[in-house]
């Protein structure tokens, strides 16, 4: 009797085993797909929202994203432990060569970097010319009442005080965008300092992270620094206008950042590796940038490939409607159309 029961149990077990094996084999390839990505910290809030929403829509798809920094994102996508990377600064030709497969750039949202300041007694917005910003950060303009600043701000009562420059001490995409802008408007900056996620600053104090820079600005009278637009908006920090390439003083907001991207559409290369700082256009905010997803052009795993392609399509359509709630600027229509054409490049 005992053996009979045992055999029955065993038989049932075997059948159920075979059954589950069969269902697994028959399941669509998109079943239970786990995708890993890593990279930039700046777009992390919107990425985590997107991946959450996408998971809610398709419960079998799980996309994990670690915000380890753009440098880490580029490194990991080259070496291959992740399925995709993310960066705030486009990969260099040299980095692209290091990768085994071609890496594609897909712009996702736009961000901007703003000059934030703490000048006691100044309530009016300060209007910065490119020359003033480059001069301040090169250490050549040292007083708030320097003629370069005064001429552009006739109505502002600028004090006769030393300027304290504050920059990011950690390597950062924010720094990359800021110095990329400075090197476009100032040949001296380009030759003396250059562009990177961290540079050899001619002057100033370093704060760690947006919060470190913001803390130093709040704590230090007569200081100026740069932070991400989102951070300045969320923390209600005063920040100035910047004169764009058309000579118009523009205050950074979502519309002026999107305008900068629209201004760059005509010159957009097919691989999307483009800097839109100092972009053309009357309404364009000049210190703007895309942030990119880095996706290998050859993906072996069919299920992952399908999911990534579908996700990109969703991100460019429904996904874009969520970005403004989180203070990111959305992609211009033209760029969305270009990216949709580029998705089939993933093989």
């Amino acid at each position, binding site marked *: 009797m005992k053996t009979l029961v045992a055999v029955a149990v065993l038989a049932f077990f075997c059948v159920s085993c075979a059954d589950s094996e069969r269902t697994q084999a028959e399941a669509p390839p998109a079943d239970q797909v786990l995708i890993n990505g890593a990279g930039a910290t700046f777009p992390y809030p919107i990425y985590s929202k997107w991946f959450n929403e996408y998971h809610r829509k398709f419960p079998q798809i799980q996309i994990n994203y670690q915000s*380890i*920094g*753009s*440098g*880490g994102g*580029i*490194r990991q996508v080259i070496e291959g432990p992740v399925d995709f990377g993310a960066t705030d600064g486009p990969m260099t030709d040299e*980095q692209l060569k290091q990768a085994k497969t071609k890496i594609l750039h897909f712009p996702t949202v736009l961000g901007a970097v703003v000059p934030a300041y703490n000048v006691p007694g100044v309530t009016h917005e300060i209007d910065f010319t490119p020359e003033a910003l480059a001069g301040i950060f090169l250490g050549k303009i040292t007083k708030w009442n320097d003629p370069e600043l005064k001429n552009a701000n006739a109505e502002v009562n600028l004090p006769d005080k*030393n300027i*304290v420059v504050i920059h990011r*001490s*950690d*390597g*950062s*995409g924010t720094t990359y965008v800021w110095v990329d802008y400075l090197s476009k408007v100032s040949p001296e900056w380009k030759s003396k*300092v*250059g*562009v*990177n*996620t*961290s*540079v*050899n*600053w001619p002057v*100033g*104090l*370093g*704060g*760690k992270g947006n919060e*470190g820079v913001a*803390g*130093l600005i709040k*704590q*230090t009278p007569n200081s100026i620094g740069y932070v991400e637009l989102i951070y300045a908006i969320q923390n209600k920090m005063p920040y100035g206008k910047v004169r764009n390439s058309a000579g118009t003083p523009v205050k950074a907001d979502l519309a002026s950042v999107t305008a900068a991207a629209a201004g760059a559409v005509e010159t957009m290369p097919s691989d999307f590796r483009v800097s839109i700082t100092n972009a053309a256009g009357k309404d364009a905010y000049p210190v703007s940038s895309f942030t990119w997803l880095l996706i290998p052009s050859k993906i072996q795993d069919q299920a992952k490939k399908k999911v990534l392609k579908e996700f990109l399509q969703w991100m460019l359509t429904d996904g874009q409607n969520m970005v403004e709630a989180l203070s990111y600027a959305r992609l211009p229509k033209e760029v969305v159309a270009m990216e949709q054409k580029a998705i089939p490049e993933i093989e």
Partner: protein
Amino acid sequence: MPLSSTLAANASAPRRVRPLARRLQRGDQIAHLITLIFAATIFIITAFLSYELYTGALLTRQKFGWSFLSGTTWDPVALEFGALPFIYGTLVTSALALIIGVPLGVGAAIFLAELAPLGVSDGLAFIIELLAAVPSVIYGLLAIFTLVPFLRDYVAPLLQSTLGFLPLFQGQSYGVSLLAGGSILAIMVLPFIISISREVLLAVPREQREASLALGATQWETTWNVVVPYAKAGIIGSIFLALARALGETMAVTMVIGNDPRINLSVFAPGYSIAAAIANEFSEATGDMHISALIELGFVLFCITIAVNAVARLLILTTTRKSGAT
């Protein structure tokens, strides 16, 4: 210490050779083996760590050689790397931490061990141990919002008006500075100095005190001339433990030091420490050369820590020998 004694015991083990089975029957041998493995792990981890740091820094070692230690430019764009400003910042902030922290810490320990009523002493010791468990980012935040403005608005003007003729106290004060880094480190290492020194002072035999008092010494004379010298080795040990912590502290320092890789004589000027530079730049370093330079910085810090520990050992050895001779 446990490592060397186990190794020494192991070296003498083959002299009493016994059949393996019999040896294994004795719990001693098994315990011996297991603890030896544990101790050896520490040695292996240290060796592996230094090997990894050394090989990871290959690129910059080849390119810069010894000039890495004396170079004063840190330019990730032009790929020129010199570590001197970081070494300077690390040593200066740690020295400031000790200058501020040691008198405060040892003084507090003497009070708690010798003069305070037992209830007060135990209560305060408990609070001090709690302080040691506060995460360093909390200290850093506190420093940004309280210590930095305080140094800028009160301490700096005071020092400049009294000792301003010294180059140490010249130049504009922004608040974030080597002094701020040193001060926050002093606060952070205080719990280590106080709690260890207090334990050491409490461990001084009662007879020592009684003998001194019987000879007619006052209580303070007894404390200063008998108890403190007796506990000297332990107090120095606590100071070096504090120094090791100060050298490697990252988060709190990077929040208040100003992160400017330049060598300034003034303690009001911003500076940069090795640990802060690594923490700041590593995550976004993309070039191999940049990463190699940061790893080499880590190797330099590792060597400094080893050197400090070696000096500490020597100092403790000589002081205990001297006090043993008298």
